[in-house]
């Protein structure tokens, strides 16, 4: 089991299909794909075996039919046969027409309910079960490919970057932190109305031995272009408040760090303004922020 995953997010089903094809061509293992609706052809691309639930339903239906037949035979013929108007009440075969409706209903009852129960158990669906989609948007309009990383991180990233992706993030399985916190925070700061350029904080996926990691500033233009630069700050991620883009007061030297961060944030908004006005290019934007550090 890989300890590290890459999550490639797409915002369109056709882009997802193309990406899965590319990944397959490059012999990259796809562990799981999360989609908001059934994407046709995806199960074939992922080489998923056809489900046998229909066969199970047939067997359950046969069980219901047998159960109905045996039950009615026992009740009406064996246990308490009655002479009802001289009708052939002492033989199941001769009395069968009157029993067809109930036997049919029991066949459907067994087939439908046991199949749905099997489906719920096999797909691990029941009340109080926690959802396992890595980002909540996969039930809305995003499509996520989960790829286990062994020693091929750069290769996977290279392949994904060639596809029409929406977001990439690297996830470490062994950390106890909230998975959502782990994700590339670029999307959290999207302010597409302001400009085409988005600047946000992300953590480097590698941790130092003391548990801290480098805070990086990520520059994203449109959908495809992206680069990140070290901010020079080393931060313990568990104290990071992603909503405010600052550290909580439990963090060592939190005051000093938050001061530095607020300086950075000021410069980020300044740079964005400059970009909108055309005074700085996307490639040069980092210089405006990191010039003195």
């Amino acid at each position, binding site marked *: 089991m890989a300890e590290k995953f890459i999550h490639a997010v797409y915002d369109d089903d*056709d882009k997802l299909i193309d990406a899965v094809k590319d990944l397959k061509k490059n012999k990259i293992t796809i562990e*799981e*794909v*999360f*989609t*908001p*609706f*059934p*994407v*046709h*052809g*995806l*199960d074939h691309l*992922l080489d*998923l075996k*056809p*489900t046998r*639930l*229909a066969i199970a*339903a047939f067997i359950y*239906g046969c069980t219901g039919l047998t159960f109905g037949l045996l*039950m*009615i035979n026992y*009740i*009406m013929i064996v*246990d*308490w046969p009655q002479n*009802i108007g001289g009708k052939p009440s002492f033989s199941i075969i001769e*009395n069968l027409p009157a*029993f067809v*409706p*109930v036997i*049919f*209903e*029991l066949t*459907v*009852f067994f*087939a*439908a*309910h046991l*199949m*749905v129960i099997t*489906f*719920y158990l*096999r*797909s691990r*669906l*029941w*009340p*109080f*079960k*926690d*959802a*396992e*989609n890595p980002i*909540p948007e*996969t*039930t*809305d*309009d995003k499509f996520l490919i989960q790829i286990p990383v062994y020693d091929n991180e750069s290769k996977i990233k290279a392949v994904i970057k060639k596809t029409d992706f929406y977001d990439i993030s690297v996830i470490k399985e062994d950390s106890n932190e909230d998975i959502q916190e782990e994700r590339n925070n670029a999307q959290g700061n999207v302010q597409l109305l302001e400009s085409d350029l988005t600047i946000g904080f992300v953590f480097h996926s590698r941790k130092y031995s003391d548990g801290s990691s480098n805070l990086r500033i990520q520059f994203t233009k449109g959908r495809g272009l992206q680069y990140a630069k070290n901010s020079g700050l080393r931060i313990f991620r568990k104290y990071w408040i992603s909503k405010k883009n600052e550290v909580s007061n439990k963090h060592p030297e939190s005051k000093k760090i938050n001061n530095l961060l607020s300086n950075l944030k000021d410069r980020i908004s300044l740079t964005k303004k400059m970009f909108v006005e055309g005074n700085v290019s996307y490639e040069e934007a980092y210089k405006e922020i990191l010039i003195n550090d």
Partner: protein
Amino acid sequence: MGSHYEAPIRKPLVTGNKTYHQISVDVARPVEGSANKQWWIVFGIALALFVWGIGCIIYTISTGIGTWGLNKTVGWAWDITNFVWWVGIGHAGTLISAVLLLFRQKWRMGINRSAEAMTIFSVIQAGLFPIIHMGRPWLAYWIVPIPNQFGSLWVNFNSPLLWDVFAISTYLTVSLVFWWTGLLPDFAMIRDRAIKPFQKKIYSLVSFGWSGRAKDWQRFEEVSLVLAGLATPLVLSVHTIVSFDFATSVIPGWHTTIFPPYFVAGAIFSGFAMVNTLLIVMRKVCSLEDYITIQHIELMNIVIMITGSIVGCAYITELFIAWYSGVEYEQYAFLNRATGPYWWAYWAMMTCNVFSPQFMWIKRLRTSIVFSFVISIVVNIGMWFERFVIIVTSLHRDYLPSSWTMFSPTFVDIGIFLGTIGFFFVLFLLYARTFPVIAQAEVKTILKSSGDNYKKIRDNKNG
């Protein structure tokens, strides 16, 4: 975009330039927003009716069935009329989601969720009547096959009333799991959008932890297909068996072999009318006009027109066979229906069910929202009268003229019926505020083939 092709002649099923995200927003809006004044007014009326109905039920149970208008000639009247009426209405949901799924009718996706909800809520109303009519509803469990150590015999599997028990309970439970399984991805969408912790908790609970893995979807689609395959004969069997309640008897006017198809067509007819009634209001109140379009209403009107015509054929066939059989009792039963003391009920039924749907041949009328709404109400009144005509006019003048009598309902009969209407609308109004009323995951699968924006792009490309 080759895989999303749909013939240009087909009208778009999703309008308003929707994106996947916009569909989520539109479906979640009624759930996330708060109720307006009209909702509370309608809910208050429905709740008052419901409470009145409960009062009448308590009066019935504590005093006895004698509080109803039944007499020794007419032993079945409003209760069974209401039972059959509600079961019939409950047929459209499964028909829309199962039969139309098998026939690959994509327009079902805008309406199937609400139609299924309507099915479940109306079957609940139907189930109330036989239980109340038992007189001692606390012994209702005697209808399940339990051994005779209880002091009586086994239940009788030759009896159509017992077939009904199995048919209705299978239908209710299978419809429920069909509905709920389809709801899982949509509940999950609302769960993942929820901001309030309580809301998040509730929708986590009801979505069963749905995550949308590729394998889950593969199984989901297979389960939907097989359930549709099972539900299709099931829905036909249920009303067939309901019609057996009458058809296997020896009462003139009841023991006709045409009953099963005639009842099934009538059930679809009244069910679609009720779907139209509810959705015409709901699409407006919940701003879902882009998903439940005029096209959807028109198609439902066509189904109403066709099934109404089938029902009309059945009425005329019954009359013909009664005459052709040469049995004077049978002949009298039908003559009495049309010209006897209950002639007004018969002609109300004929007008509402046979004549009114024929207006739907005219395109301008079947695409008119107001007209569709009026006809849907008229059809439901007509279908109530159909059951009343079959049940009461066949019973009130039987083989023995000395016991001929009339039936008139008491306030309790009427109160319980109004109570079930109230209960139905209480459930439906609560549903409309808490459930995703459009099967959004399914609608997203047809957006690229049937969305107006995508269709326009394709049309422009093809010149």
